[in-house]
């Protein structure tokens, strides 16, 4: 690889602008970035980060691929699929070890595993990878209702089942008195990351900025999850006056309970970590279920060179930095 | 023919449109049943407006108008009107246009067909029965309109320059047909025309109107016996009446012209 010129981390030089695109309206699932912003971790790295809030159809990957944003975050599967479709992107770090998507149902009508979905009616995103995984891997088929964004039907029907973010919808359903439960979709079999990614060009031109951004972001996430999340939340609340305070606590708790961000230490998972083996497995799975119409190599979808040393399994960076 | 019950009555009527100038002023008129009243006067003097008041299409400003003792609108089923424009429905053929008022009265199809055919042949349009209005000449449209008004045998017929767009022979023919119809099924008529001889030939009372504001300047009674024959037009008494009316008209318009 090319030698990276060290850039001044602090000092009088002006901060370098970096645009970071999130996949949704500002929510606690983005807490780490806002924490980093609030606590000046980005500034400390010499970055002036602008967090571009997403929304429905945020088109995170296209925006990054076309240079309308420098880095972005989304589900790891999406990056693999996008690369297969020709988008010049790579994952550079994991934001969460497990994607936060889940299945929400009523306690009166419990599900114990995703197999229980067989033959039911589920409101979920048509074309989602996990649906195909269920079909192909477990032979689970269900009747799909499109994800229209309302929870009213869930509230009205004790048999209703819908896709959700485990950090999000269950809170509101419970608030309104439903015994809402959630099951994480990610499992041993199928475990997509949520990742930070950027464009190949950006990696080539500003490797140092990527490294600094990742470093500061993961610091922000660590601080958000283990320290006092108030600074990040304060920023979020300013952007989302419509969200109640309790919600932030709930989301945080869910992220902790499901070990979303840092993963499971027993499996040697750590914050930010991307495992080559897991990604290989993921690619193979996607190929198997027919989502990828052409083969994708691991090195096309991910680079490990920006992971901080302590994010490597065993805390050690492998000698090779080929990607 | 019974007579003498006033079917249309104007009592010192004035009329203005919106907040414009007075269009009619001090109009007093009493049309007896069986009368054939003609209004004659310069263009824009208010003749059509008088008819509009009778038919209740426009409200008067002061005074009172009654038709058969009722408000004009209540008495519409006694009336039929030939408007100054042909006002045909563009999506109906000539025949269907003639049938329209009968259809509105719920007449059955066979009767409508027969009567419309009869009326169309009266105005000599048998061959144009299936034409749409846009395929008709100006005079033909007007004749369809005449056929339509006559098809319902009204008690009171309002005619606003029905024959203006027609050649003299067709005009005379229709004048005579009108009188023939009247002999068969008597009706009262208020007639607007610019032709003095037509006025004299058809009517028993002629009102000469003046403009600004529209008013009745003179009434001329025409006492020729009914039924009137075409030969009447050649007689000197007829010509004398025509001259009398023309003179009155010239006086009126002389005032009008600056």
């Amino acid at each position: 690889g090319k030698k990276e010129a060290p850039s001044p981390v602090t000092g009088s030089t002006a901060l370098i602008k970096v645009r970071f695109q999130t996949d949704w309206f500002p929510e606690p699932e983005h807490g780490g970035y806002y924490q980093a912003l609030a606590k000046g971790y980005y500034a400390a790295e010499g970055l002036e980060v602008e967090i571009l809030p997403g929304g429905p159809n945020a088109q995170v990957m296209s925006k990054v691929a076309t240079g309308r944003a420098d880095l972005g975050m989304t589900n790891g599967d999406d990056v693999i699929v996008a690369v297969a479709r020709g988008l010049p992107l790579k994952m550079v770090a994991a934001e969460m070890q497990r994607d936060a998507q889940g299945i929400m149902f009523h306690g009166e009508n419990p599900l114990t595993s995703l197999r229980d979905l067989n033959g039911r009616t589920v409101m979920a995103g048509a074309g989602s990878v996990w649906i195909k995984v269920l079909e192909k891997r477990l032979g689970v088929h269900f009747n799909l209702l499109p994800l229209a964004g309302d929870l009213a039907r869930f509230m009205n029907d004790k048999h209703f089942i819908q896709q959700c973010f485990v950090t999000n919808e269950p809170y509101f359903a419970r608030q309104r008195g439903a015994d809402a439960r959630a099951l994480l979709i990610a499992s041993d079999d199928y475990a997509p990351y949520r990742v930070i990614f950027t464009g190949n060009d950006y990696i080539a031109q500003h490797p140092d900025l990527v490294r600094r951004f990742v470093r500061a972001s993961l610091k922000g996430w660590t601080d958000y999850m283990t320290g006092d999340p108030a600074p990040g939340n304060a920023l979020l609340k300013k952007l989302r006056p419509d969200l109640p305070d309790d919600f932030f606590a709930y989301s945080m708790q869910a992220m902790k309970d499901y070990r979303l961000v840092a993963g499971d230490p027993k499996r040697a998972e750590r914050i930010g970590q991307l495992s080559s083996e897991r990604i290989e497995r993921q690619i193979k799975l996607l190929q198997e279920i027919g989502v990828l119409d052409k083969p994708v190599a691991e090195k096309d979808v991910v680079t490990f060179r920006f992971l901080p040393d302590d994010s490597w399994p065993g805390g050690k960076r492998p000698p090779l930095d080929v990607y | 023919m019974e007579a003498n019950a006033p079917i249309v009555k104007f009592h010192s009527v004035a009329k203005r449109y919106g907040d414009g100038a007075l269009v009619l002023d001090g109009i007093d008129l009493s049309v007896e049943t069986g009368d054939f009243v003609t209004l004659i006067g310069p263009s824009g003097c208010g003749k059509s407006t008088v008819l509009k008041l009778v038919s209740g299409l426009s409200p008067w400003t002061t005074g009172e108008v009654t038709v058969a003792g009722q408000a004009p609108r209540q008495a519409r089923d006694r009336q039929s009107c030939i408007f100054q424009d042909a006002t045909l429905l563009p999506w109906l053929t000539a025949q269907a246009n003639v049938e329209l008022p009968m259809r509105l009265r719920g007449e059955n199809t066979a009767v409508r067909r027969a009567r419309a055919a009869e009326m169309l042949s009266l105005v000599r349009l048998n061959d144009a029965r299936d034409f749409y209005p846009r395929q008709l000449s100006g005079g033909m449209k007007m004749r369809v309109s005449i056929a339509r008004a006559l098809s319902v045998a009204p008690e009171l017929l309002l005619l606003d320059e029905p024959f203006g767009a027609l050649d003299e022979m067709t005009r005379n023919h229709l004048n005579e047909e009108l009188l023939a119809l009247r002999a068969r099924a008597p009706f009262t008529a208020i007639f607007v025309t610019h032709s003095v001889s037509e006025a004299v030939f058809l009517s028993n009372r002629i009102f000469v109107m003046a403009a600004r504001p529209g008013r009745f300047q003179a009434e001329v009674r025409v006492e020729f016996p009914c039924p009137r024959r075409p030969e009447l037009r050649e007689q000197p008494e007829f010509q004398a009446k025509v001259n009398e009316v023309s003179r009155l008209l010239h006086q009126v318009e002389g005032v009008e012209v600056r």
Partner: protein
Amino acid sequence: MKRASAIWGWILPVVTGAMIIALWYGVRVVTGMQSWILPTPLEVLQAAVHERQLLLAAAGNTAVGALLGFTLAGVAGWVTSIVLGSSLSLRRSLYPWLLVLQMTPVIVLTPIIVLWAGAGLPGIVTVTFLISYFPVVANMTQGLLSTDRNLVALFRMSNASRFQELLLLRVPSALPYFLAGLRIAATLAPIGAIFGEYMVGSSAGGTGGLGFLVYSYNTQIKIPALFATALTSCLLGFIFVAGVALFNWAVLHKWHDSYEQPDR
């Protein structure tokens, strides 16, 4: 001359189409855009061929929803306008509330629609109806009110009932307006059905329509297939529009000025 004109009727849009396609390729080349943003027409066509079975089945489903919604909108729009056109009081009482119905975002009504009409076809038809109904009403009502006053005077004079005036005079004279509204509705019906599938669809009993495919291709970043879906929806729409044009011709050509203009 008539013949030549008919041929031009085909050639001209094709020529424009060719120009648009050229422009499309041009944009691709000049902006260096990738096919995951804007696929080339060829890629779209290939995707259409490749996915033809899914597309056809989905188009069939969507067509059913669109047709039902459209028919309903046409009929109900017609009836509503007649009710509105029949009296000023009714118009005043109802029109504002029709506007409210039209202006309430469908997104808000989704749960109610699903609850009352049910997910799948009934819901889709309802959404399609809600989307294509108002243009018909707005146009036809304007048409009913724009009737030539001399003709209205004729009817009033003939002592026509309100009902007769409406049916024999105002409705025929409002036809060109109605048909313009129907034309708008015809273009809205297929996209309305797709939107409906997007909101209240159900995959029960098959592929679940073009709206599902849109969602699915979008998630899977199958952009050429997404465009092929759009193409299919346009073709569907053209069938609707052609139907309305034919109806328009049948109803108006004999008497309406839009079908006979003087020579230039």
